[in-house]
């Protein structure tokens, strides 16, 4: 009984495997879904090849931003040093005034 069931399953599977490629073929080539067609094909470029993403502006943008960040950081250090020097002067004046009294 089991042997007969296994044999039946194998025969059914084989029949499906043979029939599947034929079933996958569309009956009428003109009835293919356009979306399926777009997803499955690559087309060659006609005429000269051009870049979709220009590299020059990206390069200039990258180096521009890098130098802007570096300059801002150097400016920040300079301002910090200037503020410290100003505070030192203020402190010296306060101490000098207090010592005169």
């Amino acid at each position: 009984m089991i042997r007969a069931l296994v044999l039946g399953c194998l025969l059914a599977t084989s029949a499906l495997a043979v029939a599947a490629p034929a079933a996958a073929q569309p009956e009428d080539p003109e009835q293919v879904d356009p979306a399926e067609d777009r997803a499955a094909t690559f087309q060659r470029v006609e005429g000269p090849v051009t870049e979709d993403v220009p590299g020059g502006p990206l390069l200039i943008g990258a180096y521009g931003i890098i130098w802007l960040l570096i300059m801002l950081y150097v400016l920040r250090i300079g301002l910090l040093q200037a503020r410290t020097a100003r505070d030192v002067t203020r402190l010296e004046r306060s101490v000098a005034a207090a010592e005169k009294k």
Partner: protein
Amino acid sequence: MADAHAAGRSRPPTLWLVLAVATLVMLVVDLWAIFFYAPVELQMGVVQKIFYFHVPSAYAMYLGFITAAVASAGYLIKRKDAWDAVAVAGAEVGFLFCLIVLISGPLWARKAWGVYWTWDPRLTTTLLAGMVFAAYLALRSFGGAGEAERRFAAGLAIVGLLDIPIIHYSVQRWQGQHPTVITGRGGGLDPDMRTTLLVSFVFFTLFVVLLVWTRARAERAKQRLAEAEIEAARRGLLEDA
């Protein structure tokens, strides 16, 4: 008030001036090498020249974050303000170069991968390191200057250091899209490209040392000024200020 004088009026050391001049010279040489000596890459074109600042910036980020973590460990052990000043300087400089990496990388990726950002392991772990040290800097800026804040920030910098080897080896461990042209086996760089990259590494090494040194001096000056103000107030010299 000797501390106050030392804080605001000290002239830069001769070695600092030599380093600044050497950095400037290397900057000029590096820019010349990038734009006039290094060849244009076959597949990506001129945008590949971002590479000569992008990769050394990542290296500079490592240097900054490692400096911050080592100095933080030094501060936790010795409790000297000088260690803390170096830690702040390292974290700031590391974060600056982390920002540069995270901005220049996507501009290159737009051309190379077609997208500005992808959740690639190396990109994600670099972003994570940036967020850890952003938290460090936020804590130092807005958390007050107390001992507890400094110690907590020092711990954060040491935790942030754990991310550095993860960033570096993420490409090998988890694959991803990030290129790996620089490897222990010699890499896949044209000889002229390799020379230019080497020049960039030399420039960035000098630049990082110069920035960390300058920033640490500024931070140390601020600390000395604060100490002088406390001392003057303790002596009753700041009543009219």
